[in-house]
């Protein structure tokens, strides 16, 4: 089915199905003052979603419940509360197997509870979109912002994007479907943000017209048939691979896994076109660079402003997509830098590890500053980290003993 043929027609809620490039790039935008959770709702309102499944867990509960209102208003085909995150992600899988455009949200311990599903989604090539409003997952219990769960998501085969602001979130939810539903991609997307910092703060976000929506998902553009008995039910294989312990079986599994990761690689061209690049840079000719993702980018911007007041020039690299990983872009952007500062909201420093595995001259990479367990990251500690790296005295923060 050619989706262009339905452009201009109306969906179940009488919204006009619009060419997504026109909708996202050309249509007038209305500035609106919303919480991140409300922004998720507004994006989903325009995303022509067929099925959403919800489960309460802080801090995504609000967004998930707001999307329930969309269902009550008729914007979503079906919506219900599942019984656990594991069940919810399986319910999402079922709906996607049946050819629906599927949306869900989770956070922290819920992400970990659901984890077995994510590689399955990727392996079954289900283009489900899952919003992840990151929070702590360790014992003792924390409900506060912490991005450690992204470290796990990056190994699942899903596309993983990390939004900095509510505006990113709004645009990327809609653009995310366009990328992940491409036939040569067709992978789930974990669209992450830092919980509370993005979901529970208000920001001005430029919204597309409410009467416009994305074209519906066309399951027959999938690289694997959807399970609706509308295409020939051929026997999938002569012998189930799980039966065989032989080279053919191993080779089949190996090539399938490689294909999943290759599909993520193939998403680059679409993602670059939609997001205007996998990274965003400012002043990368500076000696010192801050490389970050999520709200650590915003704190980095503040630190850069503070340092500029002291005459220290610092550049910035904002990483938008973690999967696919923007290796080439990062190499290019950091080639002149002598100090690369990586502020993060998690205890292990997964972003610094990824960078160290990618960039030449790893001694340039300073893994930190890091905060975790819900702590905020005042820009001053990034300033201090930079000064320390440069061998300067800072002492701006009381009691830190530097």
């Amino acid at each position, binding site marked *: 089915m050619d989706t262009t043929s339905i452009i201009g027609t109306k969906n179940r809620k009488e919204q006009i199905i619009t060419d997504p490039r026109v909708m996202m790039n050309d249509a007038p935008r209305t500035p609106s003052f919303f919480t991140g959770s409300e922004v998720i709702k507004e994006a989903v309102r325009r995303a022509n979603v067929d099925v959403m499944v919800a489960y*309460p*867990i*802080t801090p995504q*509960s609000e967004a998930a419940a707001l999307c*329930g*209102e969309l269902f*009550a208003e008729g914007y979503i085909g079906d919506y219900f509360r599942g019984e656990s*995150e594991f069940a919810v992600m399986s319910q999402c899988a079922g709906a996607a197997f049946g050819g629906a455009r599927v949306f869900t949200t989770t956070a922290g311990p819920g992400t970990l509870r659901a984890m077995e599903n994510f590689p399955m989604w990727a392996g079954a090539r289900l283009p489900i979109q899952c919003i992840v409003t990151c929070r702590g997952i360790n014992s003792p219990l924390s409900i506060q912002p912490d991005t450690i769960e992204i470290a796990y998501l990056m190994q699942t085969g899903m596309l993983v994007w990390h939004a900095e602001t509510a505006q990113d979130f709004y645009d990327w939810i809609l653009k995310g479907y366009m990328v992940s539903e491409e036939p040569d991609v067709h992978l789930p997307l974990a669209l992450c943000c830092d919980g509370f910092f993005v979901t529970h703060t208000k920001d001005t976000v430029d919204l597309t017209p409410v009467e416009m929506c994305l074209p519906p998902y066309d399951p027959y553009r999938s690289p694997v048939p959807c399970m609706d008995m509308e295409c020939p039910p051929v026997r999938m294989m002569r012998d189930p691979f799980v039966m065989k312990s032989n080279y053919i079986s191993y080779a089949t599994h190996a090539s399938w896994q490689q294909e999943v990761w290759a599909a993520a690689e193939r998403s680059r061209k679409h993602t670059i076109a939609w997001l205007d690049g996998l990274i965003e840079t400012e002043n990368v000719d500076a000696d010192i660079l801050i490389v970050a993702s999520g709200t650590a980018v915003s704190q980095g911007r503040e630190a850069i402003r503070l340092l500029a007041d002291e005459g220290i020039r610092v550049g910035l690299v904002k990483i938008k997509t973690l999967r696919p990983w923007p290796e080439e872009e990062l190499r290019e952007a950091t080639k002149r830098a002598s100090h690369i500062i990586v502020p993060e909201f998690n205890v292990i420093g997964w972003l610094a590890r990824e960078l160290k595995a990618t960039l030449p001259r790893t001694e340039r990479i300073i893994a930190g500053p890091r905060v975790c367990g819900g702590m905020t990251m005042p820009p001053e500690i990034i300033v201090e980290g930079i000064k320390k790296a440069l061998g300067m005295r800072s002492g701006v923060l009381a009691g830190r003993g530097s």
Partner: protein
Amino acid sequence: MSLNYVKFTPGFDVFMPKEYRDMVEHGPFGKKTTVSQMGSFKEILEEHPMCAGCAMTLFIRLAIIAFPNPEDTITVGTAGCGRLAISQAAIPFVYGNYGDQNGVASGLSRGLRIRFGDQPKDVVVMAGDGGTADIGFQQVLHSWFRKERFTTIMLDNEVYGNTGGQESGMTVRGAVLKMAPLGKKFEKMDMVAMAKIAGCAYIATVVPNNPRRVESCIKKAVLIAREVGPTYIQAYTSCNIEYAIPTDQVMADAKTVEDDRYKFTEYVSDEAKAYLTERYGYKEFVQKPAAAAVLTA
């Protein structure tokens, strides 16, 4: 726990916090305190961060007072409002992941039995309806299938209270809540029937209005779980915030709900009846001769 563990090294008592001294001097460990003495001794749970008027808090306080052997009781809980209070009580509280409380309690009660043999160590699970009937439902049922010997108490506020008021499996049909924007589409889960089929030896439904009844249920449930098998108590502990019950109407609401759809029910298996009678002298389960019954009637 030997009661000596809570006592102070002589000379150090002046340095101990007031509440700890109170606990040693006026606490219920080693005594037979009852709910009717509430207010005249230091409770194991006294402070808590719950909302004003919360019925769940009252129920938890009553339940803890009713533990037959608090100095050898360990509670297990999960995410939800209940844990905010239970975790502040002066008895150990185990908290794992959301919904895994009956899994944790299965391991815990078996581990304690291996380590302490015949010395009773009571394990009591207290979790909300989401933790018990939704996300933890499978582990709850399987612990009952396996006849794990501990008590499961559901603090049933018929909603996900702690996350801000979403529909749960124990919500009544038709209630409009978050995640149920058109009203809940299916019936309140019948956990009592589930408990019966799954083989619980004692099952009760209560509301917190009648403290003596709560005490009686908890005592029986904990004692039966020691030796006979799994026990289950389902307590209506309304969420006055999410259901917009004025704080001064919380008990009136509980009474109304009790009369309407949360009547006191109690199921005691024959084996549990015999055990309570023989071991603990419960008279209410003594089989009356049939002839005598006719005469009194």
